[in-house]
């Protein structure tokens, strides 16, 4: 199968139109010395039937989490995806189009991006948002770069309670872009505000905090913003689990300057970590500093409403060396899924869903903390994740849980050397009361 529609006869007609005898003659410009002499060494081609069989076989070497009761979150959230989402994003007109350079043929994509931007602004209570970014981590890195350019400062203050892999990505970008990363310590599961205050100097471009943070706890954003603004640093607020925005006060209300986050939880599957999608929102005055695509409303020659990629002079394909970012592709289809999801759940649904998550998490946490050998690391309020300290190694506990078809919490030792025997649990609407009760029972049993 090669998906080439032309028949041998048609190919011959085309060759004869070109006055040549063979396909080979079209490649005489490729130096003979570097031409591939034999065929590529790849497994033999498969028919559609065979590829389906082959891929099912590889898929079955994995255990999807439907087969387990799973309590993992940590930046990738297992929420229910309404059937409508898949059906709509699979429509070929959306799926097989590209960046909407030609607005008149891309009104569907452009309007859906505009709706996405509007919903992100509403959720975060910010003025403007872009069309999406690769993921929450690159959105955070791009925001730090944007803040550094705006303030003309090089130091980036980062809470250690931010997702460790986001901080790793940030560090990679910072090394390249000549920025200095300074970390703020953690105190009982929260960003250490005293440490933050001592480190916010006039040379600091921005302060980055995620809330709820990686351990699940809700940060004191009022104090964070005040401390950051003391010396004219920007405050960048991160969102890891966006369902939390259904119930928590939005970062814009705390006067954050830039809000970045991950929106996978809105209608996008886990996909073993990608594709997910990042978002970035900011204040009106920073609009022209925003990286990435932006869809704007305008009119056509008849005066009718339409949408178009706007402020393109920020972008690489026009501005080249002077672009705000090198970003070309965003995550349009994932953003479409998020938009459709948010339209479905709407105002009441998102709030209700957030309530289910927070109430069930509260229930699970209460039950686990009552068990003899498990303790909460913090008394701080949380949304749907919380961190528990155990008297055994999480590795051992998880191995025992796995035998009972439970995927337990994340072993935090993987990222924090100092957090020995700590596990991060996540509860969503996918974890029923029955699942939670089974987890609690199993946690009790494995310690006895």
């Amino acid at each position, binding site marked *: 199968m090669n998906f080439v529609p032309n028949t041998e006869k048609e190919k011959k007609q085309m060759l004869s139109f070109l006055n040549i005898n063979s396909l080979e003659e079209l490649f005489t410009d490729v130096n003979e010395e570097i031409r591939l002499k034999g065929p590529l060494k790849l497994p033999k081609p498969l028919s559609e039937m065979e590829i389906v069989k082959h891929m099912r076989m590889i898929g079955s070497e994995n255990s999807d989490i439907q087969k387990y009761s799973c309590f993992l979150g940590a930046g990738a959230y297992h929420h229910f995806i309404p059937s409508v989402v898949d059906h709509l994003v699979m429509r070929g007109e959306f799926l097989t189009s590209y960046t909407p350079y030609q607005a008149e043929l891309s009104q569907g994509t452009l309007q859906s991006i505009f709706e996405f931007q509007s919903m992100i602004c509403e959720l975060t209570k910010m003025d403007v948002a872009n069309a999406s970014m690769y993921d929450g981590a690159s959105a955070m890195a791009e925001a730090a770069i944007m803040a550094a350019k705006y303030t003309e400062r090089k130091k980036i203050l980062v809470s250690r309670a931010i997702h460790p892999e986001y901080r790793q990505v940030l560090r990679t970008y910072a090394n390249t872009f000549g920025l200095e990363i300074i970390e703020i310590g953690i105190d009982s599961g929260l960003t250490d505000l005293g440490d933050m205050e001592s480190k916010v100097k006039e040379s600091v471009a921005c302060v980055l905090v995620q809330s709820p943070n990686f351990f699940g706890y809700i940060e004191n954003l009022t104090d964070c913003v005040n401390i950051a603004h003391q010396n004219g640093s920007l405050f960048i607020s991160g969102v890891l689990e966006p369902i939390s925005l259904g119930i928590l006060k939005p970062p814009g209300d705390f006067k954050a300057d830039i809000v970045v986050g991950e929106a996978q939880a809105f209608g996008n599957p886990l996909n*073993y970590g990608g594709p997910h999608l990042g978002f970035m929102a900011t204040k009106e005055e920073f609009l022209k500093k925003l990286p990435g695509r932006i869809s704007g409303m305008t009119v056509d020659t008849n005066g009718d409403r339409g949408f178009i990629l706007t402020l393109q002079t920020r972008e690489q394909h026009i501005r080249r060396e002077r672009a705000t970012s090198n970003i070309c*592709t965003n995550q349009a289809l994932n953003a479409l899924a998020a938009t459709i999801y948010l339209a479905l759940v709407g105002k009441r649904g998102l709030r209700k869903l957030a309530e289910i998550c927070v109430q069930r998490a509260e229930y699970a946490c209460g039950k686990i903390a009552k068990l003899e050998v498990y303790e909460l690391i913090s008394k701080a309020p949380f949304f749907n994740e919380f961190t528990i300290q155990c008297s055994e190694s999480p590795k051992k506990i998880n191995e025992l849980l796995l035998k009972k078809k439970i995927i337990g919490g994340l072993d935090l030792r993987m990222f924090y050397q100092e957090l020995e025997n700590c596990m991060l649990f996540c509860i969503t609407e996918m974890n029923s009361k029955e699942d939670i009760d089974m987890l609690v029972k199993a946690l009790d049993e494995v310690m006895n």
Partner: protein
Amino acid sequence: MIFEKSVQGRIGVSLPELEVPKSELKIPENYLRQELNLPELSEVDVVRHYTELSEINFGVDSGFYPLGSCTMKYNPKVNENIASLPGFRDLHPYQPEELSQGALRLMYELSSDLCEITGMDAFSLQPAAGAHGELTGLMIAKAYFKDKREKRKNILIPDSAHGTNPASSVGCGFDTIKIETDKTGNVDIKALKAACDENTAVLMITNPNTLGIFERNIVDICNTVHSHGALIYLDGANMNAMLGIVKPSEMGVDMMHLNLHKTFSTPHGGGGPGGGPLGVRDFLKDYLPIPDIEKEEDRYYLSYNRSKSIGRVKPFYGNFGVMVKAYSYIRMLGAKGLKDVSENAVLNANYLMNKLKDDYLLPYDVVCKHEFVISGEKQTKHGVRTMDIAKRLMDYGFHPPTIYFPLIVKEAMMIEPTETESKETLDAFAEAMHKIAEEAKSNPDKVKNAPHVTVTKRLDGVLASRKPIVKYNKED
């Protein structure tokens, strides 16, 4: 607009019961949200709204989409089914490795397939898109020269390059030096030799270049750059012309990215998600992002052992869902199928180029690879510009080509038909282009006022930039 269809009290989902006893929230009142103005719609409202939006969008499934350098080929439907299997899409990135052996295997095998196709020695699948791969490559170049204690500031970029190349370079703190294209559409080798010195870090080259021409002096170019101790980065966006024909390693390439959403047929999704894996030669392998996937006997695992790694460029492991489709595509086609792809992509491009050259100026009349560039310059004397021709093509049912790029051709139209288009489609497109050339002479206003049949007439981009409205507001 979705917000305008909102009716208070509607909802499009059914949620489960709380199930647990309701307790008083521990979250303090001043941390709770007061209002949330998302729209309220029923399920059927949402389905109709987005179906309507899809109907005013154009994809490869709708028709011919010859957007140059974007490789808008047909995306096999079977790959969508495959990527939706629970064994691929319902995997948590932190679930235990023993439950993820299939996923790790797939990534491992995809990397080795990409190595075989390009001649690179190792691939990182982390980069999310071509521009991301490019950035990762330049980060590696920077780290590599830092280790060698060499202060090299310059990146050489031909003037025909994609805009992402200079943007990525400057982002990484390099200076860019533009290398001119000569009269034959190739990199001006004299200019290159003159620009290349001990300050040169990298040459970023696209081959076939954006004129669709295979760089005649590619070996000499690479040798020159290497003789100064600099690296060759290949922008692999145009790999669709070279599958099974030539491996970039043979040209002398040290690093390159591939665009899974171009060459390997994963759908473009309206602008992502994509995949931009980065391949390197052995001597740069240790610099690749972590983690990578290794194999010991029959077991696959994530490895964090790369001593000089630049670090992580993406959380988790990259756009896995995109990798599944690319892997499946490669396995369906095999060696012969991939070579067929390039041969037919090149045949289609040459056929169409020669069909169009009577009506339009063809600035470089030589054999092309998978794409070519014509110019609307002949039509400007009638007051018709390339933009107008592009818009008029919409009335004939075609997506326009890439326009005004590459910058070195005036009134450029960059056309990439891909291998998945039939002769009839190419003939129909050529016929439409012929009619437009006639209209430009006989009825230029018809062309200048195009499009006529699309859902909106020509949109005012100036207004959109001057008075940006980027979110819904009842009054707008």
